[in-house]
């Protein structure tokens, strides 16, 4: 896969995180009551809209973060073979984090 495809996804997820986290802050923290109240948490957990937003933030955040970590590790003069190992390690770790993290809001829903 061309590096530019990964990079453009990095930009898209960065912009996505900015807007979705902004939306979360605006709705939960700035326009309604205490967002940590039990009733408020349970209302959000039962909402399909909020579930979608949280899963999208999770996907964008994991991609953006894991791609950033890959970029940092790449600068350690890794040979091509090690780069392939790194790519697969990043994919597996990302999927593992996603699998665990996505189960929480789905379970609550």
């Amino acid at each position, binding site marked *: 896969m061309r*590096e*530019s495809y990964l*990079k453009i996804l990095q930009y898209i997820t960065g912009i996505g995180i900015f807007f979705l986290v902004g939306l979360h802050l605006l709705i939960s923290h700035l326009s309604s009551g205490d967002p940590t109240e039990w009733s408020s948490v349970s209302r959000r957990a039962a909402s399909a809209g909020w579930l979608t937003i949280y899963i999208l933030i999770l996907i964008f955040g994991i991609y953006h973060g894991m791609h950033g970590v890959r970029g940092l590790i*790449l600068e350690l*003069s*890794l040979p091509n073979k090690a*780069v392939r190992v790194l790519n697969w390690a990043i994919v597996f770790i990302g999927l593992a984090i996603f699998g665990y993290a996505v189960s929480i809001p789905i379970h609550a829903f």
Partner: protein
Amino acid sequence: MEKLTFKVQRYDPDKDKKPYIQNFTIPFKHGMTVLDGLIYIKENLDNTLSFRSSCRMGICGSCGMLINKLPMLACHTPIEELKKDTIEVRPLPNFPIIKDLIPDLTPLFEKHKSIKPYLIQDTEEVEKPTAEFLQAQGQLEEFVQFAYCVKCGLCMAACPTVATDKHFLGPQPLAQAYRYSADRRDAGAKERFKQTDTPHGLWLCHLAGACSEACPKGVDPALAIQLLKRATLADSFRLTKKKPQPSVAPSPEQKKPKIAVPEFTIKKPAAKS
């Protein structure tokens, strides 16, 4: 300022375990460059000092060194401009040292070669050339500043990413990849993207801009890398328009003079009587 102290890094891989600094005191002359100082040391104080130089006028790019912690051409650096009477001279960083102030520029040339730094055209005209390809002034200006590169390696020495990742292509090859890809006479951009759009390619550039600061020829490699990123993204999403075939200059037989030569200026052979 009558005397100058040169702190020169010495290292002979056959004798020394690690580099060390040797001090030399030399007389100062108005208009002297760092290279003049090194030549004075070699001719009068220590003829074992090794450094590379050739043209003495910033054209060949041989005398790149780390002068007072900045990569510069020794021949292009007047001592008066440094405003110090102690001058520290070391070999360019990010390259292996051959001896004293001579860096091994092989990694630079190998990376430069990998991006195919020549015009690629798959046309009949290239196989059997009849005349030169034509190029408009505006087309030349799209890349001409990047063509001034003398391959001195100062940008590679200044680059913080080259310092950490020896596989990173670096500013010089990336700028040259853009220089040839932007040329209207070239059709090899896709071949170059295979080299530059890789994990150790152009996306590792952090845009520190140290390369553009260091370049003694006024080339802006950081700008070239940004333009190459734009061209790469356009190519990835198939937004690049196919370049038209470059036109070829007419042969001398086909050319007509712009102004007709007046008849009376043409010497005619004298009529035989």
